[in-house]
């Protein structure tokens, strides 16, 4: 139950901060590539830096941070294929949606109708994934070992 409340509190904190700074990972990459503007890109760097420092520090002081660092975790060709296809597609369509999934949740809470419609499609997508796409994924993982 502690994880449930911890994620709620962390969600409130990052939701508040994310709304104030217009934090978005996809826009960060897009602005950096398209306009050479590193303003939002620094957020992505911040996650990697914060994660690296946090996981290293808590691992050293004995918190429950197992398998750190993970290292080479490509267990099958299927996982690699699914990872690359999924990531490229997510990056591609998130540019047209004008934001990463986190940013869309924040914009929906600001009252932006296109973000609310995005989330309608997003949660319908989750239903479709759990009924249809997951079977394709399992087939891919079976055939590639």
């Amino acid at each position: 139950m502690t994880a449930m409340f911890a994620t709620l509190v962390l969600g409130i904190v990052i939701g508040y901060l994310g709304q104030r700074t217009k934090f978005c990972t996809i826009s960060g990459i897009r602005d950096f590539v398209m306009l050479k503007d590193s303003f939002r890109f620094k957020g992505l760097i911040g996650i990697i830096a914060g994660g690296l420092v946090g996981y290293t520090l808590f691992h050293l002081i004995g918190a429950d941070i197992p398998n750190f660092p993970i290292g080479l975790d490509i267990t099958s060709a299927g996982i690699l294929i699914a990872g690359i296809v999924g990531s490229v597609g997510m990056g591609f369509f998130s540019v047209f949606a004008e934001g990463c999934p986190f940013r869309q949740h924040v914009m929906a809470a600001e009252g932006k109708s296109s973000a609310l419609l995005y989330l309608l499609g997003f949660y319908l997508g989750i239903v479709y994934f759990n009924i249809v796409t997951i079977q394709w994924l399992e087939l891919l993982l079976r055939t590639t070992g």
Partner: protein
Amino acid sequence: MKFNFKLKTWQVFGVGAVMGIGAAIVQGYFNAQPPEAYGISFIGHPNDLFSWLTNKIAGTNWPIRDAFIVYPVLTVAGVFIGSFAAASRNREFRLQPGPVRKKFLAVIFGFLVANLGLLWGSCPIRTALMVGYGSVIAIIALASIAGGVMLAIVYIRIKARKGVPQ
């Protein structure tokens, strides 16, 4: 002016750092695992919450990550509360159109991002967290996300050159 700009720049970096350290705390001290580096995920957590609710209400058996089988993950609810509070406090909450002009396309983009994101299993934030965790596949995935963004930019530039409206 210059000072303000620098401050804002560091604020965005700071938010990222808060996410990274917060995710490490949630994992290390509040058992938000397995899997590793799962303190924040805007693909995995919405899927886990939605699947948890569907399993409870409709009796389905959709897969949920081990950490959130008994009690649901509430990051999504927290973000709604936090960003709504921030928007309301600063008088920025109001019903408005949003960045995607065609409503149908917004639904389609959400649908596609959910499916493609679940295929990889992580949103860009968790992918970056996994890079911090030392995962090689996350480095490849983050590069692939950047590749997808670049492809979209190329597509937009070609469309703009041809003068076709988006």
